């Protein structure tokens, strides 16, 4: 088993004249929290979407846990252990919190048509649901329709779904955006707890959070990787200061 969980080589994606990914290279080690930062429009979300399969690259390769996945549809990547949250929270609004998590639980139990038995009462869901609820602190909202959760709770639920089934790599696209100070702290705590258990690729604008949480940082500008290194290295990197931190 290699200690690289993800190897991205020369990933390229253009939208007309805009190159959203420009020969992007990225290596993520097992167990690390790897932050992906860059100014607005740098191509962070586009990169995440290519990793998850929501969009296909024009060229380049993505090797995840030893498997080339760059052309694989999203659901198959998810089954290999690649989970994600979206920049704009994406949950099942019309279902209850427990139904949301139950779906994530059964997703990893293989393909199976069951027509009769109440899904929430199946042994698998009964066994795993309490821990899934507790992990994201939503035990008391189990029966609530997800639509009526607060913004922060929706975010927690989304991360909770992504965590179900123990993914090998978790892609988080700005999990703290719009959360308010309290929510940001909660989310930072959650990510902190996951450190060491799950490898995380974190896209985040909040630099304090990035510096506090990340093991390594990759800096993206105009779709291109301009720097990659430890927190200390990136803090003092001249190009980064000019291109990114300087602007902030």
């Amino acid at each position: 088993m290699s200690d690289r969980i993800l190897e991205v080589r020369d990933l390229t994606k253009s939208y007309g004249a805009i190159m959203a990914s420009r020969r992007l290279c990225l290596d993520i080690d097992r167990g690390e929290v790897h932050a992906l930062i860059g100014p607005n429009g740098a191509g962070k979300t586009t990169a995440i979407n290519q990793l998850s399969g929501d969009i296909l690259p024009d060229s380049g390769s993505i090797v995840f846990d030893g498997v080339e996945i760059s052309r694989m549809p999203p659901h198959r990547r998810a089954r290999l252990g690649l989970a994600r949250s979206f920049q704009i929270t994406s949950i099942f609004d019309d279902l209850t919190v427990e139904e949301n998590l139950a779906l994530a639980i059964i997703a990893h139990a293989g393909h199976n048509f069951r027509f009769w038995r109440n899904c929430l009462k199946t042994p698998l869901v009964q066994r795993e649901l309490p821990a899934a609820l507790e992990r994201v602190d939503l035990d008391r909202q189990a029966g609530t329709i997800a639509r009526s959760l607060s913004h922060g709770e929706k975010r927690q639920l989304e991360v909770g779904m992504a965590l179900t089934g123990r993914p090998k790599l978790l892609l988080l696209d700005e999990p703290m955006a719009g959360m308010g100070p309290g929510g940001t702290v909660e989310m930072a705590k959650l990510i902190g707890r996951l450190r060491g258990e799950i490898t995380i690729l974190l896209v985040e604008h909040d630099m304090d959070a990035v510096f506090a949480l990340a093991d390594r940082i990759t800096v993206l500008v105009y779709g291109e990787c301009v720097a990659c290194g430890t927190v200390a290295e990136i803090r003092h990197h001249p190009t980064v200061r000019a291109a990114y931190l300087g602007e902030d």
Partner: protein
Amino acid sequence: MSRSGTRTAAIVAAGGLFFVLLPPVATFAGEDYPISLFTRILIYAIAAVSLDLLIGYGGMISLGHAAFVGLGAYVVGILHQHGTDGQPLLGLLPGSDNALLVWPLAVLIAALSALVIGSLSLRTSGMHFIMITLAFAQMLYYFFIGLEKYGGDDGLSIYSRNRLPGLDLGNDLHFYYLCLSLLAAYLLFVHRLVQSRFGLVIRGASSNSRRIEAIGIHSYRYRLVCFAIAGAGGGLAGALLANQTEFVSPGLLNWTLSGELMVMVLLGGLGSLFGPVLGATIFLLLEEVLAMYTEHWMVFLGPFLVIVVIFLKRGLFGLLTGTGQRHE
């Protein structure tokens, strides 16, 4: 939450009791007509419930559901004709009037057609899905119009209802209670289905198609099977309708029937299962009453529907159960 649950259960029980007691009361009053009208309502309710599974739970807005009703009806009509003239269908299959054979076949053919139509339609979504399901149904509609062997435009008459051991389907009372039992069974099945693992995937895919793939579930096959289950319900309704009216015609496949079924679902309440039963009841009763005064009865039904859709999120059933306000 559990209080609205008890209220729903009470309303469903009251509705069930109403349907069970209707024939004896009508007979006591010396009226036969209500029994045949309500048989029709029960049959349309089966079709409307199956469409609700598709639209209300699966988010698959089909405007071609009549195709399955029509196919189910034609299976009854065509097998009846071959049974009468003694000539085997395609030189192979003898005709039949045996409900135990004909009805499952009607359901099966509707389900298989739904698999074919669904496998092509479900590759699209939104407006395209609506149009493509409509197009398939209209294709079948014109196909049956052109099918001279089975009456073409004029349709097929059925001279005697199907036979079922132990029951006399020619007896309106027997037929009524059979339709009621089949509606109850289909309701129970769909009620369990939407809470099952399969149903959860269907509802999830309808709520957020991108998220369901992102958690690792490819929803296409689930939605396809759901489409077939709904088609099967339509086929059952068609087989019953052919028996009730003792007549089948291409009109059963026309988009107007698809539209009427959709109206019943919306009127009763999308995604509420029992709502479409109420919707079918109200729709057909209104049609019956208004048609006595004017042939332009749709002029009155239209505004009523608009009001219900604008002000009641879960239709008339939602209004009854107290879960229906537009705002949250």
